[in-house]
């Protein structure tokens, strides 16, 4: 069940930027000791504070490093500019941050948010080829509608083809849909989805893990797929070719321990699809009804552990 009670909060213009936000941004722009964003984010989560990590890199000398001061200054200016532009910045340590993303090692250090953040958002990815067949588009729409009927959020990547069909069907059905995009939050890619992205921001949620004006790059889409895998409780690959991005999402989901549902078409059409079926928690479905059955089993399984544990504890 989705809990719609916890809304994201927009900071007022008067409020000073949080010291945690400043420290996080300073860490990410200076990357002390050549650390990757992933290493820095892991460190910040382990410490429970970006400031603690930022301070740990300060040199013990008496004269402060001007580069460090400049980085904090720049962070100040960025946060201010983003507020002026009405862009919502959420850091990995904020309460509003989707907590299921903290389960995956590619957890983004921050997100830009357009729309409503909901804690415990039960979402399922519906993804696939940009150049989809009309049958593929129908399947995507059918699955999206069925998920909405079960009160499950339809998650996708706002790409052409399968992604678009899933988002549109979810909106048509009056359900919640979340788009995780491969560009900055102010960008539209493909341009033809401009209106759809704005609609999703109004009625659902658009998330971006990139700087606000970042253009699409060949690296941004796989990074975005990792976040999609992490946000949802499962990934459904509707239609895909041997080299489509959906393949990356399927592989990442297995690495995250998240279930994957492949349509029988994907298994027939691709070598990777066939090979993936040997991995744990990879399912094959030949109808929307089967997809929904598998999703239901996944939800039930997640709820079963406490009962299993108390039975074992009593048997001890």
């Amino acid at each position, binding site marked *: 069940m989705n809990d719609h009670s916890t809304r994201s909060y927009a900071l007022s213009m008067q409020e000073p930027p949080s010291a945690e936000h400043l420290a996080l941004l300073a860490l990410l722009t200076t990357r002390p000791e050549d650390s990757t964003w992933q290493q820095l984010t*892991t460190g910040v989560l382990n410490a429970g504070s970006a400031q603690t990590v930022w301070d740990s890199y300060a040199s013990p000398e008496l004269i402060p490093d001007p580069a460090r001061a400049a980085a904090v200054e720049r962070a100040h200016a960025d946060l201010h500019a983003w507020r002026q532009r009405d862009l919502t910045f959420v850091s990995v340590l904020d309460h509003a941050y989707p907590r299921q993303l903290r389960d995956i090692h590619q957890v983004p250090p921050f997100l830009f948010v357009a729309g409503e953040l909901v804690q415990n958002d039960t979402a399922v990815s519906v993804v696939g080829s940009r150049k989809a067949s009309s049958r593929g588009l129908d399947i995507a729409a059918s699955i999206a509608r069925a998920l909405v009927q079960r009160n499950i959020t339809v998650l996708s990547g706002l790409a052409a083809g399968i992604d678009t069909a899933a988002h549109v069907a979810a909106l048509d059905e009056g359900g919640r849909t979340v788009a995780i995009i491969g560009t900055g939050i102010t960008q539209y890619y493909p341009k033809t989805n401009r209106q759809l992205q704005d609609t999703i921001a109004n009625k659902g949620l658009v998330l971006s893990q990139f700087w606000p004006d970042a253009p699409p790059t060949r690296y941004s889409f796989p990074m975005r797929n990792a976040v999609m895998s992490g946000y949802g409780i499962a990934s459904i690959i509707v239609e895909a070719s041997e080299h489509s991005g959906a393949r990356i999402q399927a592989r990442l989901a297995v690495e995250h*321990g998240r279930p994957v549902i492949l349509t029988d078409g994907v298994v027939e059409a691709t070598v990777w699809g066939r090979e993936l079926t040997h991995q744990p928690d990879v399912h094959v479905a030949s109808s929307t009804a089967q997809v929904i059955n598998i999703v239901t089993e996944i939800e039930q399984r997640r709820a079963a552990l406490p009962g299993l544990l108390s039975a074992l504890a009593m*048997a001890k």
Partner: protein
Amino acid sequence: MTSPSPRGRYEPLVNLLVTEAGGYLNNTILEPGITCRTCRTPITGGWLRCYPCNEQLRQFSSRLADYTAFLTYAIEGTQSAFTMYRYKDQPPSETPHRIVTLLALTGLLLHTECLNRISGIPVTAWVVVPTLRGRASTHPLRNIVAPFAPGQEIPVTPTTTTGSRNTDAGLFRMPRLPSASHVLVIDDTWASGSHAQSLVLTARAAGAELVSVLIVARWIKPTFADNKRLALVTLLWVPDQRV
């Protein structure tokens, strides 16, 4: 619960673990000349043990752990290591806590019966290695294993909070143990093994006859030359592998 075999009894737990984490967790490997006999880290050069374990053995010989069991590898920079960090989060990070729970209990329930059989002395007491850094609070692993661990819990206090990396019986304080004690030392991760082996030495000094170690994850830094060998070893999930 009348199932004859322990595996049968714990099957649902094992199945859940394989389903939910089999995509990124692997069984540890005990293979002479390929992994360390004590800690399962990949080794080269025809040795039986890795350098740190060999050095500990040279210094403490038979006072070290009698038996060691490792459930999985935590490979730095990957999902397995990240899970071992996140399960300790407050408030708890749901999935990582769930996976470590499944790992710890699968290990505890399956390995203890095996350990009792091969050692000849059933485990009489257990202890989770306390943290040696920062605040002393209840270890999250302690709360996970407490309802299932065999025998009595031994109260242990650290004598330092400096995060010492020495292997030293004096790092912990423990009351005198009854005769014929078999102590199970439990920890979430093993990097050099100094903390777990220190507590083994403490238990030995307190009169333990046998001391076994159960570790959830052997920490692996993939930049170490040795660990490149890990890629050469086919890692497959074998759910019924034993101690």
